[in-house]
C-alpha cells in the first residue's frame, strides 16, 4: 500500500518543480499574480520571513505557509524536502540523470551524518540573523537558490531560445512569437549563486541529497523537527532480510541496513525505499508503536531542544528588528543633493541605490529579501536586477532598480503582488503612482541642451508626472527643470538621457520611501477650434 507513496510523490514534485520553474522563466506575464502565491506560500524561508514582517502590522494569513510545513514535518518528517522544495526536487532529477549517465549500476550506500558541518552551518546562519542581515541565509536557502538558478542562469537561455524560434517562425511568415530582451546580469552578482549551485549540482550528481543533509540550514532544521515526528519510516525487523535494496535507492544515504536503523533526521520522505522493499519491511509507522529505538535518543532529543531554542531565538531577534523597523516613524529627509548644483565635472554618484516600490525603505528591503529573484523574472520592463554591491556586501544579490537597463512602468504593481517574503509589500495602482522611491537630480553641465545647444528633452518626454519639464533656455531651446515633490523616482528620465558616459539626469534612491505629491491639474486656456486655422 505504501509503495504508492513514491509515484504520488513524483507527481506532486513534478507539478511543484514545473510550476515554480515556469514562474521564474516566463517573460510573457501570462501567469496571474495569484498563481505565484500558490507555488510560493509553502516555501519555508520566504514564508517565515513574510510572517515576521507582517507581525509588525497585524497578522496575514498568507504568511502561514511555514507553519503548515512545520506541521507536515511533525507528522511525516521532512516531506517538504521531497514534495515542495524546488531545489530538492531538482536534485532528485539530477540524481536520476546521473544514475542513467553512469554506466555501472550506481547504488547509494549508507553514509554517516555530517553532524558537525550541518549543525555548525545552522548555528552560524541563526547567529547571523541576529545581525539583521540575511546574507548567509540567502546564500544557502534552497528556494532562493532555485530562484536564482532559474532567473539568472536559465532565463537568459530560455529567452535566447525563444528569439531563435521567433526568427525561424518569422522567416516563415508567422508572428505567433515575439523576440524578447535577453537579460544580462552583472557577472559579479552571479558569483555567489554560481558557487552554491555548482556545489548543489556536483553533490547531487555524486551523492544524492548531500547538500540537503550537510549544508542546507533548512534541511538541518526540519531534520531536528522530524526527530519528534509522529509517523516515521522504520524497519520491520522481523520481516527484513537485510537485502539492502532500500539502502541502494536512498538518496539521503540515511538507511543503515546492518543496524536496521534509519537516521530520520536526514530522511527526506521520498518513499523510494518503500517501493524498493520486496516484503514491505520498511514503512511509515506511528511513533508510539515502536518505542524509541532511534540512534542515541537522548542526545538527539537534546539536540532538538537546543537547536529549536537557538532557531526560535534567532528568529525572535530578527522579528524584534523587523517590528522596530516597521514601527519607526518615517524619516523625512535622507540626504539628497539639490538639483543642478553639480558644477564641476561629469562624474555623477548616487547617494543611494533605488529599491523597488512597495519595499518601503532600503532597511526594510534588505532585511526581508531572500534574493530569490522572482521579482527580477516577473518585472515586465526588466528594470529589477540582482545587485552586487549596490546595497553593500551583505545585500549582495538582492535586486535593485537598474535605470541603465530600463525604467519602472508608472502604473505597474507586478513585483508588489508576487514577492513571497513581504520584502516588496503590496501596493495598489493608486498608491504606486504616489510612491516616491527616489528623487530626480539634474546635472546641467552634462545636458545636451547646455553643452551642444540643440533640442533634446528625452528625459521630460518620458516623465510620467512632469517632475521633469522643459523650460525656456536660449532662443527656441528649452532645458529640463525638476520638481522633486512630484517625482516618483521611476527612472525613465535617467534611462532616456542620451548623454554618455555620465548621464545628465539621475534618480537618487530614497532611503525611506515617501509619498509624492500629486501633479497639479492643469486646465487648458483655449477652447477647441471653431474652424480651420488655415
Amino acid at each position, binding site marked *: 500500500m505504501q509503495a504508492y507513496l513514491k509515484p504520488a510523490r513524483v507527481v506532486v514534485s513534478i507539478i511543484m518543480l514545473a510550476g515554480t520553474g515556469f514562474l521564474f522563466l516566463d517573460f510573457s506575464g501570462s501567469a496571474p499574480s495569484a498563481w505565484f502565491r500558490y507555488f510560493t506560500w509553502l516555501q519555508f524561508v520566504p514564508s517565515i520571513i513574510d510572517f515576521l514582517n507582517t507581525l509588525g502590522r497585524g497578522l496575514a494569513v498568507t504568511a502561514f505557509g511555514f507553519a503548515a510545513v512545520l506541521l507536515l514535518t511533525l507528522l511525516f518528517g521532512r516531506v517538504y524536502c521531497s514534495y515542495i522544495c524546488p531545489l530538492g526536487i531538482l536534485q532528485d532529477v539530477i540524481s536520476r540523470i546521473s544514475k542513467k549517465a553512469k554506466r555501472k549500476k550506481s547504488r547509494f550506500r549508507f553514509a554517516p551524518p555530517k553532524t558537525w558541518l550541518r549543525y555548525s552551518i545552522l548555528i552560524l546562519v541563526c547567529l547571523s540573523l541576529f545581525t539583521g542581515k540575511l546574507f548567509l541565509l540567502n546564500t544557502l536557502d534552497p528556494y532562493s537558490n532555485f530562484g536564482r538558478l532559474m532567473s539568472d542562469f536559465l532565463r537568459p537561455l530560455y529567452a535566447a531560445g525563444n528569439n531563435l524560434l521567433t526568427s525561424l517562425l518569422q522567416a516563415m511568415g508567422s*508572428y505567433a512569437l*515575439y*523576440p524578447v530582451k535577453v537579460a544580462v546580469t552583472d557577472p559579479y552578482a552571479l558569483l555567489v549563486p554560481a558557487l552554491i549551485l555548482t556545489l548543489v549540482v556536483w553533490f547531487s550528481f555524486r551523492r544524492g541529497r548531500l547538500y540537503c543533509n550537510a549544508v542546507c540550514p533548512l534541511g538541518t532544521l526540519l531534520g531536528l523537527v522530524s526527530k519528534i515526528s509522529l509517523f516515521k519510516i522504520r524497519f520491520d525487523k522481523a520481516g527484513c532480510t537485510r537485502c539492502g535494496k532500500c539502502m541502494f535507492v536512498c538518496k539521503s544515504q540515511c538507511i543503515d541496513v546492518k543496524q536496521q536503523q534509519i537516521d530520520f533526521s536526514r530522511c527526506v520522505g521520498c518513499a523510494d525505499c518503500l517501493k524498493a522493499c520486496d516484503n514491505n519491511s520498511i514503512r511509515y509507522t506511528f511513533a508510539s508503536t515502536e518505542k524509541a529505538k532511534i540512534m542515541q535518543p537522548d542526545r538527539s532529543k537534546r539536540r532538538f531542544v537546543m537547536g529549536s531554542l537557538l532557531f526560535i531565538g534567532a528568529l525572535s531577534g530578527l522579528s524584534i528588528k523587523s517590528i522596530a523597523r516597521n514601527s519607526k516613524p518615517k524619516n523625512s529627509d535622507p540626504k539628497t543633493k539639490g538639483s543642478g548644483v553639480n558644477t564641476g565635472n561629469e562624474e555623477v554618484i548616487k547617494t543611494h541605490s533605488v529599491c523597488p516600490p512597495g519595499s518601503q525603505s532600503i532597511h526594510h528591503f534588505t532585511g526581508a529579501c531572500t534574493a530569490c529573484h522572482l521579482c527580477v523574472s516577473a518585472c*515586465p520592463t526588466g528594470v529589477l536586477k540582482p545587485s552586487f554591491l549596490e546595497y553593500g556586501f551583505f545585500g549582495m544579490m538582492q535586486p535593485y532598480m537598474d535605470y541603465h537597463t530600463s525604467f519602472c512602468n508608472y502604473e505597474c504593481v507586478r513585483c508588489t503582488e508576487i514577492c513571497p517574503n513581504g520584502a516588496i509589500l503590496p501596493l495598489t495602482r493608486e498608491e504606486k503612482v504616489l510612491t516616491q522611491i527616489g528623487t530626480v537630480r539634474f546635472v546641467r553641465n552634462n545636458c545636451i541642451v547646455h553643452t551642444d545647444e540643440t533640442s533634446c528633452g528625452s528625459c521630460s518626454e518620458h516623465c510620467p508626472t512632469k517632475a521633469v519639464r522643459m523650460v525656456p533656455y536660449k532662443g527656441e531651446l*528649452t532645458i529640463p527643470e525638476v520638481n522633486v515633490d512630484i517625482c516618483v523616482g521611476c527612472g525613465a528620465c535617467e534611462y532616456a538621457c542620451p548623454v554618455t558616459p555620465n548621464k545628465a539626469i539621475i534618480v537618487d534612491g530614497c532611503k525611506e520611501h515617501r509619498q509624492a505629491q500629486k501633479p497639479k491639474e*492643469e486646465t487648458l486656456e483655449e477652447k477647441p477650434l471653431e474652424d*480651420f486655422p488655415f
Partner: protein
Amino acid sequence: MKRRDFITKSIGAGIATGAGFSLLSIEEAFAKSLFNPHAPYDLVAVMGGEAPEMFEKGIAALGGMKSFVKAGQTVVVKPNIGWDRTPEFGANTNPELIAKIVEHCFNAGAKDVFVFDHTCDNWQKAYATSGIEKAAKDAGAKVIPGNSEGQYKSVSVPKGKQLKEAKVHETILGSDVLINVPVLKHHDGAGVSFAMKNLMGIVWDRGFWHKNDLQQCIADMVTCRKPDLNIIDGYRVMKKNGPKGVSVSNVSVEKAQIISTDIVAADAAAAKIFGKEPDSIGHIRIAHEMGLGQSDLSKLNVNRIRI
C-alpha cells in the same frame, strides 16, 4: 511603392522639376505637388466628425485608398503607440482610426498590413493600453513588435546632414507602402509631435538623434524614407505635457484630421491646428528649407471638409 515605380516616378519628378524650373519659380514648382502629381489635392483637412468618418471623407477626396495601395502590396501602417496610456490621453493614435485605415488598405487589395511602433514605454503595455493592438488585429492587420534591436537593419541616409545612418525596422524596408498615422500632440523635446516626428518610431537608436541635433535629425529621416501617405490624427490633441501627458485635462478635443502625401505640408497644417506657426517648429522649418515639402499652406491646393 515598388522600387521600379519609385525610379520611374523619381525620373518623372526630375523631368517635371527640370521643366518646372525652366518655366516657373521654385515656389510655384513645389506648388504643383511633386510627390504625387495625380492627386487632386495636395492636402485634405477634415474637421468636426469622428476619426473614422473624417478619414473616409478625406481619403475619398484623394481618390480613395486605391490611389496609394495597389492590389497585392504589403503595407505598413505606422501609428504612434509610444505610451502606456489610454486613448483619452491623446498620447497615442486613435485606435478606431487605425482600424478604419487597415480596413481601407485591405479593401484596396493589400496583401498584408503590418502595424507596429518602437514604443517608449514597455511595448506590450503600450500596445494593449492604447487599444491599437486589438483594433488593428480585429481589422485583420498583423500587429508586430518593434522592441528588439535584431529587427532593425542599418541603412544609409546620404542626404542627411546629421543623420548619416539609421537602423530601420525590417518590416518598413520590406514593405511596398508606408502609411504614417501620427497623433497630433505637444512634445517637450521636439516642440510638437506630428508626422515627421512619428518616423522616430521606425528607427532603433533614438538616443543618437537626441544627442546630435534632434530637429535636424527629424528632418534628415524624411530623406531616408518618405511615407507614401500621412494621416495626422487631430481628434484628441494633447496641448501640453507631451508626449506622454500627465492627465486627460491636457487634451483638447479638436476633431481634426489632416491627410497628405507631403509630410511637411501635413505637419505645417497640424502646427496651425496646434496653435503654432509652422516656421516656429525647428524640424518643419528645416525640412522645408531642405526641399522635402512645402510648409507654406497658401501655396498648396487644400481641400477643407467640414462635417
